[in-house]
């Protein structure tokens, strides 16, 4: 009997111990997604997936960014039943440093940059690609880093941006001199272009990059971006050099260029800014001044068709819809030929080479059913003409506010309600301030 009880007691204790230990079979790994560990020794497919993620990620909050620039630049109104701040903060009560219109696009651009760093890291670690192929990856990643940084600088301008490095925990200084940031961007673009030359591109890009999918095409895309940055930097001569390496083509289609691809396909994204004509409640309406300031006959009025009823919110009204994206799968431009021709014109004006500038301006004018330029041959007059053409050619594509800011002419923008204001830039996000 003695033994019997001992056995039971031992068995129970052993049983309890068994419950504690036998069931614990080891670590549970991430069941849902790959982790950043893949860049330690990636395959080609891993790198390609990262590239597609970058291209896809560039679309994140791209619509919000365009709304930001277009609303403050008085190109459009964004009426929404569910979001008041498009008509309050944006136009009258003040931009906040911790609200989605700033924080979302800001963070998405830096997220894409972080992923570009992963590609740089992964390409360096990948054992199954040639050096030329490696350069294809790094050239693309560096180009995108430059472009993404530019978009954030466009928002905050003199309030500054930080320039990230390979180390995700490093928090660099806020650089408040836009020129200095632009130089960094140009450096990334130049490094990217250098890598791309002589590279071999083995990754796939969407049809948004049609014509620019290989090393030569990506180099042209890279140089086109550099031309924009050099124009913002006022390196006028460099603008022309950059354009030479780009896809600028006076006789080509204005729409030729690189786009964000959208589709309704599974797992893909639809154009976030598409709204059908004559909608109510959620509306992107063109600012009334777009039509009233327009030259007679300008065919670009087609971007702002008349609504069947005026739409109004908070004392603002418009009878025209923004209609530059006409379907859920309509692409959003990143950079296209029409802007390059206008950058050419701008550089030539600034360099005093007016005839060349006029050729470019007239290319735009005649392309839009307008007679050739007949105004004064002065820098001031030609710049007015240039800004007009940029306004109408690039409506809603994220330019007017930035153009007027770099020419110190934000005061030209119309004020609709007594207390409305034109903000010169976004504040630095709260999370960048509180560190």
């Amino acid at each position, binding site marked *: *009997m*003695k033994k019997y009880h001992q056995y039971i007691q031992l068995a129970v*204790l052993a*049983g*309890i111990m068994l*419950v*504690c230990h036998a069931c*614990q079979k080891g*670590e*549970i790994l*991430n*069941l*849902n*997604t*790959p*982790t950043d560990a*893949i860049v330690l020794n990636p395959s080609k497919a891993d790198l390609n997936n990262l590239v*597609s*993620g970058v291209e896809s*990620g560039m679309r994140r909050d791209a619509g919000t960014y365009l709304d930001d620039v277009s609303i403050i630049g008085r190109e459009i109104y964004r009426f929404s*039943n*569910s*979001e*008041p701040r498009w008509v309050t903060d944006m136009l*009258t*009560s*003040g931009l*906040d440093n911790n609200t*989605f219109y700033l924080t979302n696009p800001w*963070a*998405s651009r*830096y*997220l894409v940059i*972080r992923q570009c760093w992963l590609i740089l890291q992964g390409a360096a670690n990948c054992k199954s690609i040639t050096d030329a192929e490696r350069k294809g990856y790094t050239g693309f990643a560096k180009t995108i880093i430059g472009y993404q940084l530019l978009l954030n600088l466009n928002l905050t301008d003199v309030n500054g*941006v*930080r320039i990230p490095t390979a180390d*995700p925990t490093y*928090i660099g200084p806020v650089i408040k001199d836009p020129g200095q940031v632009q130089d960094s961007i140009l450096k990334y673009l130049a490094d990217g272009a250098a890598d791309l030359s002589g590279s071999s591109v083995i990754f*796939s890009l969407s*049809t948004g990059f049609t014509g620019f999918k290989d090393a030569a095409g990506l180099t042209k895309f890279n140089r086109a971006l550099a031309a924009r940055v050099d124009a913002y930097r006022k390196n006028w001569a460099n603008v022309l050099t950059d354009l030479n390496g780009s896809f600028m083509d006076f006789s080509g289609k204005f729409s030729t260029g690189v786009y964000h*691809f959208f589709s*309704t*396909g599974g*797992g*893909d994204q639809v154009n976030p800014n*598409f709204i*059908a004509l004559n*909608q*109510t*409640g959620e509306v992107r309406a063109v600012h*009334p001044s777009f039509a009233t300031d327009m030259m007679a006959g300008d065919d670009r009025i087609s971007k702002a068709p008349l609504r069947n*009823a*005026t739409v109004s919110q*908070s004392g603002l*009204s418009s*009878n025209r819809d923004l209609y530059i994206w006409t379907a859920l799968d309509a692409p959003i431009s990143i950079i296209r030929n029409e802007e390059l021709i206008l950058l050419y014109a701008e550089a030539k004006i600034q360099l005093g080479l007016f005839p060349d500038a006029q050729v470019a301006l007239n290319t735009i004018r005649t392309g839009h059913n307008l007679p050739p330029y007949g105004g004064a041959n002065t820098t001031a007059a030609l710049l007015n003409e240039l800004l007009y053409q940029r306004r109408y050619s690039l409506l809603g594509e994220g330019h007017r506010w930035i153009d007027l800011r770099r020419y110190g002419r934000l005061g030209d923008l119309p004020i609709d309600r007594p207390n409305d204001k034109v903000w010169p830039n976004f504040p630095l996000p*709260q*999370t*960048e301030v*509180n560190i």
Partner: protein
Amino acid sequence: MLLSRFTFLVLLLVCCIVSYAQQPITGKTQDAANGRPIPGVTIRIPNSTRGTVSDAEGKFSIMTTSSNTTLVFSFTGYKTKTVAVNQSSGPLTISMEEDFAKLDEIVVTGMATTVKRRNLANAVATISSKELTGVAPAQTFDAALSGKVPGALITANSGAPGGGISVKLRGITSIFGNSQPLFIVDGVFFNNSSIPAALNDVTGAATAGNPQNQDNPSSRIADLNPNDIENVEILKGASAAALYGAKAAAGVVIITTKKGKSGRTNISFNQETGLVKARHLMGVRAFTAETAADLAGSASSTDPDVISARAWYKYKFQQAQAAGKIFDYEKEMFGETGLVLNTNISVSGGSDKTTFFVSGNRRKEDGIIKNTGYLNNSIRLNVDHKISDRVSIGVTTNYINSSADRGLTNNDNNGVTYGVALSSTPGWIDIHPNAQGEYPVDSFAASNPLQTRDRAINNETTNRFVGGGNLDAIFQQSKTSTTKVILRGGVDFFNFKTIGLFPRDLQFEKNSQLGHSIQGMSNNLNTNFAGFLVNTFNPNNNLTLSSTLGATYETGYFENITTVATNIITDQSNVDQSANATTRQFRMKYRDNGIFLQEDLTLIDAITLSGGVRFDRSTNNGDYKKYYVFPKAAASWNISKMSFWHSDVIDNLKLRAAYGQSGNVPPYGSKFISLLPSNINSYPGILLDNLRGNPDIKPERQTEMEMGVDFSILKGRISVEASYYNKKIYDLLLRHTLPASNGYVSEWKNSGDLRNRGIELGITAIPVNSPKVKWTTNINWWKNKAVVTKLTIPPFAIGSFGNSLGTFYLEEGQPATQIKGSVGGSLKLLGNAEPDFQTSWFNEVTFLKNFSFRLLLHWKKGGDNINLTQLLTDLGATSADYDDIINGKKAGVYRPSAGDASIWVQDASYIRIREIGLYYNIPLTNVKHIRGIRLGVSANNFFTWTKYKGYDPEVSNFGSNTMSTAQSRGSNGLSTGVDVMPYPASKRASFHLGIDF
């Protein structure tokens, strides 16, 4: 092995007794006050396995081993009585006194041990079935807790059928970890997650201002049938719940369901029939021709389009007015009266060896919005069986089928939810369908809310099985020592299906994605096993030492597959009846285990000392192999039980103190830096998650010190319980923001400390106790202050929608629940979501023998909400007070454009009659098969006094425990009280009929 020999002897003795049965002792138990028989009294002989239960007439019979013995009579709600009896003394009459102060109530303190309330070191709240459902039943179990738990802040997320409640015990216990208590039903860990239905694909709610999911899912605890519950005990903090280890930081709610009693079979039928209505509607703006014209633009505008549009609106308004077609769409939408039909049948009974409880329940309730409602069918079978005097087993099983049609409410960014669409729809346009059933376009909104209501579906269906088993075996027994083995296991499985169906011809679909069919299928399996070895050493009457050694093991596996199909074929809902479909999958898995040891010492029934330690590990921790240690210690001294105590006034006085630690494991996935799917143009892509995982993540650690004094005077007629606690949380799990310029928006990090201090006071009194009238009253008062004592990271905003609309803001040295926002461009303190205090007042009056009146009043003083419902109605120019003048402007114009977030941060105090009911027991004479008939009328949440300008001060756009998936962020522990076009809260009035056979 002395003990073993003893055991053998006892065993032998028991055998002898069985074979040579002696004279039984018989008798009757009755209430000392009115002489009524008390059925169900447990009668046992101390230090033996002998025991019985009194039958329906209060009669009992028990065999004894010797001619002189002692019997102990105990019954919930009555003082335990010990009687020395002699076999030859003849039938006994045992009069039991009601235990007004509930000192003899048995409370679960350890995982396998109990203690009498008299000796308890913590303030454990106990809710009986009468308090839970006996006054004015709420729709779901979680709602039935409202106002009944001192120390808790219980907030309904919305009025949507099927529940959704946030329960916070003793302040803020976690911000990004689990903030909701652990629910344990008969030993089974009952999953209480809220699984979103992916409505975000239609609403886009989480795409702009706040990435947190805003789908308004129900909480799964709502599946539980409140009528099956016998008793609920709430361990509010680590000092009481430390033995539950790494899951107990937010408290533990221990639910015991009803069990059968041996004796006659009881059949009970209960029917509730009632009506639900919206508690409060906000009202709509009364337009004039001029204000209608203002919707087209300013009167001063010179734009010819504006001028003509103004004239058109004016004309339309006048036309509508002349035709008497000014509608109140708010009333049409939220003004329905719903029917409540709840039926419950239970059968219980059993023999000496086997007892059972079976219940079937059907709860059906319509919502206050057309096409919404809740249906819950459940069956339960609980069986207990004594294999021998030493070994007993019990099994509980519960199958639940529930379905909730929840409508489309809450925030959205596409103008598609009912409230957002209504907020901009003036009453002078007609959005009703025409004779052909075609809905006109709502020319002021992105969707026609009546069309969405009538044609869209948002349904959640749950099929759930919860089962548990336990085995109690006396493993060793002697005169002074008893050792038990307790084994417990449970399984909780549910399948949860969500359907969001938005036909292609809805106003917001037809020019966009051409219909959505969003179908989600989730399976969840939780298992838990535990084994305990409990020894009670009782060398003499003055000393009891009980030791528990235990081990626990829990696993969880969750999987969700959601397919979002768009461009769907007319009238079809299958996801393959579409042009485009996207499928997402999310899985989650954990294994936790713990080992613990507890010692409880009771001296002369007056001093209780208790100590324990628990070791826990979890696969969710960064270091999955590491055991975290959680100690506890408690002491209570019942001074009135000391021999020197002689007071006629104070008949019970106890001092108590308890200390304990517990943890909160990090959420699944917080240790990974993930790359999420992000495809483009059919190329598979992966994109970094903007939430950075942390491989070093570890559990939060909570320490809680609780002290209190309990006393009762006038023979328990007045009893007072007062507690103070200081609860600190270290290594706070934060999903804190990072400077986004490094690429990540936020990061998991143990990065701060939090402190909650609070007071809980409870007074129970019986002011009147005569045979004709008895009035019991209970007042509770509690308050909590939560402060962030340390933050190793910069202060950060954690929602709701950015500074310009008011946001929760974590900052060292400041209240955890503070709300900040921008006023005139600078960030200012605007409020605090934490109430100043809460009070509840429960009354029960029984009179004229058979009437009983019960009332529960709940007062929440202070605590701010962020009211963005008002903002949206202002923006849509439909607020009822739009035309009032503030600072020389129309209120509806002034408020949104003032650049002042303080306007939206509003006091959400309220006084509410939570429950009120009157019941009547029909006196029955000479009726054979029916033993009792009850009739009653009740009203739930019927009367509210508040200045809050929303549908209801209880609201939460972000839910309370919405699950985080790989791609969506769940709820956090702070952001309740954000009000964005919720499903309005409802009130109900019911008629009750109960028959016992």
